[in-house]
């Protein structure tokens, strides 16, 4: 092939190599990244704020004596929107309120003993057995609960039979006949963590009739209401539960007037305080403004109907001395209470 070769325009300058072009490109990239880093450095240099939640524990079952789920979420939102509470929370370094559900009694007992919750909606039995100094500030109250003029709220446990039971028509129930009956029939109960529904009536059974538990066995239900339904439906013929729950159920179904036809109460326990709301010792109201505001705000929220029929009244540790004493007595006369 023939032709002329193009002449160099600047024959004296050295020709740029490919290595030189790459080094130039890399330098330019580093320069740009450096400028971006310098521009963002004030933001990145800020210290990272770790969120700190006020931890509220509760039992994830609707049959507990406290509210759960949706009602507690409403309460949490109300507390966070409460200016005074929020100011106190922020002052204490809390960035929010977190709800933490416990799977069961043993889970809650373990987490209470690990001081995991700042606030806990707990059964009275767990409060009585905790050893880390939680303090009771509120106690639950339903309209059917008994309360005294000085503000004490209590419930009573009962052992009762349905009209299917031969004891329903027996004129006088003796210790022997009751013991004989309980050796043949299973006793419907609401679980060991219901003081009024389990320990209190069984302790009274031991005290009055010298019967240590149900020899025929127990039929476990989730709550006092379920026990009442179980006995009225015929699943069991004898049961132990909170009397207030039994009465509430009969009233709901319009059966209050037929109470004596349908059931017979064999024994009634001592008065038992209702389940408490407890705070960590550091939030104890006498020492903590946040503790005081939390107690006030939760109570006001419940009084405004935020928790339905359930309300909270002020409580102290003294209210629950009877529970501790009852549980000790129960352990001594009936046996250890399992979770």
């Amino acid at each position, binding site marked *: 092939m023939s032709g002329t070769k193009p002449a160099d325009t600047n024959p004296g300058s050295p020709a740029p190599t490919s290595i030189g072009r790459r080094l130039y490109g890399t330098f330019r990239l580093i320069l740009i990244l450096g400028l971006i880093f310098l521009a963002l450095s004030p933001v990145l240099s800020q210290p990272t704020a770790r969120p700190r939640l006020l931890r509220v524990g509760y039992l994830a079952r609707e049959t507990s004596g406290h509210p759960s789920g949706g009602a507690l979420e409403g309460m949490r939102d109300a507390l966070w929107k409460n200016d005074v509470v929020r100011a106190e929370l922020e002052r204490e370094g809390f960035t929010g309120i977190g709800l933490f559900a416990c799977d069961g009694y043993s889970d809650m007992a373990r987490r209470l003993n690990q001081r995991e919750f700042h606030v806990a909606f707990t059964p009275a039995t767990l409060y009585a057995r905790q050893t880390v100094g939680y303090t009771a500030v509120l106690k639950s109250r339903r309209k059917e609960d008994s309360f005294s003029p000085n503000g004490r709220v209590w419930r009573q446990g009962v052992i009762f039979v349905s009209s299917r039971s031969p004891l329903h028509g027996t004129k006088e129930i003796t210790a022997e006949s009751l013991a004989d009956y309980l050796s043949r029939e299973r006793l419907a109960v609401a679980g060991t963590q219901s003081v009024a529904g389990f320990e209190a009536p069984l302790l009274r059974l031991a005290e009055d009739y010298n019967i240590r538990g149900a020899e025929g066995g127990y039929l*476990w239900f989730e709550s006092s209401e*379920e026990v009442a339904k*179980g006995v*009225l439906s*015929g699943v069991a013929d004898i049961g132990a539960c909170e009397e207030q729950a039994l009465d509430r159920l009969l009233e709901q179904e319009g059966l209050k007037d037929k109470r004596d036809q*349908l059931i017979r109460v064999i024994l009634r326990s001592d008065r038992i305080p209702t389940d408490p709301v407890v705070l960590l010792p550091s939030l104890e109201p006498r020492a903590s403004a946040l503790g005081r505001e939390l107690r006030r705000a939760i109570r006001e929220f419940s009084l405004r109907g935020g928790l339905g029929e359930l309300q909270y009244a002020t409580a102290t540790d003294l209210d629950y001395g009877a529970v501790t004493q009852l549980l000790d007595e129960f352990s001594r006369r009936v046996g250890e209470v399992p979770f």
Partner: protein
Amino acid sequence: MKRRDRNAPIWPLLLAMGMLLGAAGTLLWLRGRLVAGQQSVLDGTVRRFEATGVLGRPESDSVIFGEIERLAAASENELIRSLRVVKRAADGRELTLVPFYVDLTEPRWRDAPGWIRLPVGAEPAGYLYVRIDRSTIHAVNAAIMLLGLLLVGGLGALLARQRGKEAQVNRLQSELEQRKVQVIQLERLALAGQLSANVFHDIKKPVLNIKHEVDDALDGTGQPIEEVLRSVRAQTDLFLQMLRELGMEAFVNAAAENREWCDLAEAVDRSLRLVGYERGNVQTQVHFPPDREFLIEGIPHRFVQLFSNLFLNAFQAMGHGGTLRVRGMGNGEWGMADKGSTGILPVSRQPTDGDWLVIDVEDSGPGIPEEKRAEVFSPFVTGRAASGGSGLGLYICRTIVEDLGGTITVDKSEEIGGARFRVRLPAASR
């Protein structure tokens, strides 16, 4: 009140009934869908209880009322108005869990009507008792019943209308029958009139003889009066004998329409005598099998009318010469010998159901062209219009034969060449 027009068209009624039928069919289909839908809802409810296992197993007493009550409440809907949940306990008792108190307050609630019991599980852990809203299905049932009633009413109207039509047809038939009888009677009179012409001709002779002899006697030119009177008596005897043998009087005056057993051979014989004056030189052959009777239940003078018409037609077709052959066939056999003019056939056996008596009337005349044979039995069809034929003779023959359940046909006589009329009559009594 305005009377309904019986001739009003029927199609509006049929159309209305068709629409009612369609509507009833649609409602039945709808009811089927409704029932299937309800069953589906009930099955779904049972499946939900089975899937959640809230009733547990029969041997287990573990019950969570809250869950069962929530499920029961969620299962109530527009169809399931009320639902009760029953658990089968280990000891076989059935415990009502929802509502939990009902076994105490209403121990016999299961006996109340309206509850549908649905087992939950193959080995039932319990049962659902449901009361469903039946108002829709009751409404559909009522609508179906209403449509059914309307359909029955429509059918009734249709039947009434049909009955009316039938009555009308029966009345018309009755009138037609009366007319037919009248026509037959009139035709008989016409036949008699036609036959009377020749009779009168023959009668004229003895009457003229009498007149002439009486005239001569009065003029004093004739025989003595005693002879004249004898002659008159002989002439009148002859005259009466002629009339008697003719049987015209009996034929014309026959008024009874009662059925009786008739001998066809005798009817043939009487007919031949009746139309004898028209016979001319025609040779008559009558053949009936000797071993059976040709008995048939009917009106005697009608048979005479039948055969007289056929014979007269044959005579007139042949002019004054030829052969008329009458044959009777019973039990599959033709009469073989000349029967003569009269006589009752010996009884060999009575006719039985399924037998037919066949009488052939053949002549040696020109016959009837094949293309005209179909219409010779129609009324007012005659080949002798000029000579006064009414055209009713063969029509009357067909009417008489068909009234007896028989048939009459015409074809060509293969043996003697003219027309052959075949009268076929059922032998059993009618």
